């Protein structure tokens, strides 16, 4: 498969960023944070189609992207990332050098803002709760309800998402320094409304 180049950058960026401050992450968490970054890009006013690749929701209400999946396999084979016996990913020295080059390209400059914000969310909200909150956003909530894999961010899902983002926008702006709080207060609100945090 020919994956979107954006997926290669996103996977390496997320794995590198998270391994700076906490134990490394597994594949499902790379998909999760890439999807959150995609939603934050939409919150900033970008159309979903600009993200470069798409996502589906699994029966468990988790996001999955075939492009991210393929990028993880290819990056492992090429030696840019490595996977431990416990399936935890880390970026190799070669991968770090490659990531630095990719991040310097103008093509990828805009997406680094939502990617960084998505990764920063992990230090404000524990990953399990971040995952649970995200599973309650309109598109993922629908896949979990129907218990079947389906594409995310269709017209209905996007419209409901815009409604929620309009509420967040009353409190939070779209600048880089506000983005992670916009995301975590939104996800915390979804958890609060469902009674999962008090």
């Amino acid at each position: 498969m020919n994956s979107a180049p954006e997926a290669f950058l996103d996977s390496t960026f997320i794995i590198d960023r998270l391994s700076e401050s906490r134990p490394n992450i597994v594949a499902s968490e790379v998909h999760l944070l890439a999807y959150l970054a995609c939603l934050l890009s939409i919150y900033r006013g970008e159309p979903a189609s600009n993200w470069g690749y798409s996502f589906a929701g699994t029966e468990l209400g988790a996001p999955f992207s075939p492009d991210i999946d393929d990028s993880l396999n290819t990056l492992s084979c090429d030696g840019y990332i490595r996977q431990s016996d416990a399936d935890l990913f880390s970026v190799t020295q070669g991968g770090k050098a490659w990531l630095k080059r990719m991040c310097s390209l103008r093509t990828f400059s805009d997406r680094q803002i939502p990617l960084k914000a998505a990764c920063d969310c992990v230090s404000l909200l524990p990953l399990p709760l971040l995952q649970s909150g995200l599973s309650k956003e309109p598109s993922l909530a629908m896949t979990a309800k129907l218990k079947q894999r389906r594409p995310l961010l269709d017209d209905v899902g996007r419209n409901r998402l815009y409604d929620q983002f309009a509420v967040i926008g009353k409190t939070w702006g779209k600048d880089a320094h506000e983005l992670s709080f916009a995301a975590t207060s939104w996800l915390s609100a979804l958890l609060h409304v469902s009674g999962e945090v008090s």
Partner: protein
Amino acid sequence: MVAKYESFISSHYAAIAKAKYGKAGVVGIFELVQRIKEIFLTVITDSYRGQIVIAHAIDGKPLFPRPKVFSSADLLVELSGDILVQPLGGKYLVYRKPRINLKALSMRAIVYVWNSGLEHFILKGVQGEIPKINALDTSFFAIPTFHSLSEALERYGLGSALNCSCPILEESWAEKARLFFKPGPEKIMRTSLHQFLHATMRGAEVRPEQIVDASHPVDIQVAWNLVGSLALIEIKWLGQSRAGRKRRGGHSEGRALVGAKQLAGYIDKNKPFSPYKTARGYLVVIDGRRRGIRPGQRKIRAADGLYHSTREIVYRPQYHITRTDFAPAFRFFVRPEIA
């Protein structure tokens, strides 16, 4: 629903920080949370006695004269009692200020307060609430997370169950000394463990009361995303229950053996319903057995209260040895308050 959602977002601690301090508040509270995490990695919260205040000065200057300076968060472990910590320029300034006016301090600093498991921010005099996970006694910013279910269960056993530091689990007892359970404590125990795993298990969906075949629900199911693995958790309790002064029933070691057999059956019955997923069974035994107690009793001696604390259950059959889909059972002894 929208109003509730909107109200939560506008009253979130970070939204208050933004409203009160502007951009400096947003940047400052993010920085402060990172330092709170570092400090909680070194200060063991459940044994710390005293109030910990951590403050981020808006002007970036020392808050008071003559602080004690620590070069890293690791060194804070030697501290005790009421302290004020100010992270500044990669160092930690510590002040002994037991009678400090925190509301006044919050006019020039973002203030975080932790005291006996309760935490909040003070933002220009306004209290900013921090979300609370009831099954955990640690700071919301320092919640431990696990990829391994066994590690998570071990942490629950030692951190939440042993001294009953989980407020939900505490509700299962009929009295403060933890001698008798209330009648039918299973539901409370399930809620406690479910909430703990839900907040700490990474890369997995944790759901209570999941049907494993046509009619039987297992207490908790953990399903790992993208992996196709499944854990079925069955909870049993040992000990006695009472309603008022009347003994209502109880379970001894045999209950754990019945639970193991029941769980083995669930795993087998689940196979046709989840043919593409590998299920593994986990038996969790909440052990509240006390020696020689009677209803009306309010105190217990160590010899009786801790009699069962180290007496492990011998399982027959030993499913954890004979089957690959059955984990060794977890027995979480809950200590009573000793007179």
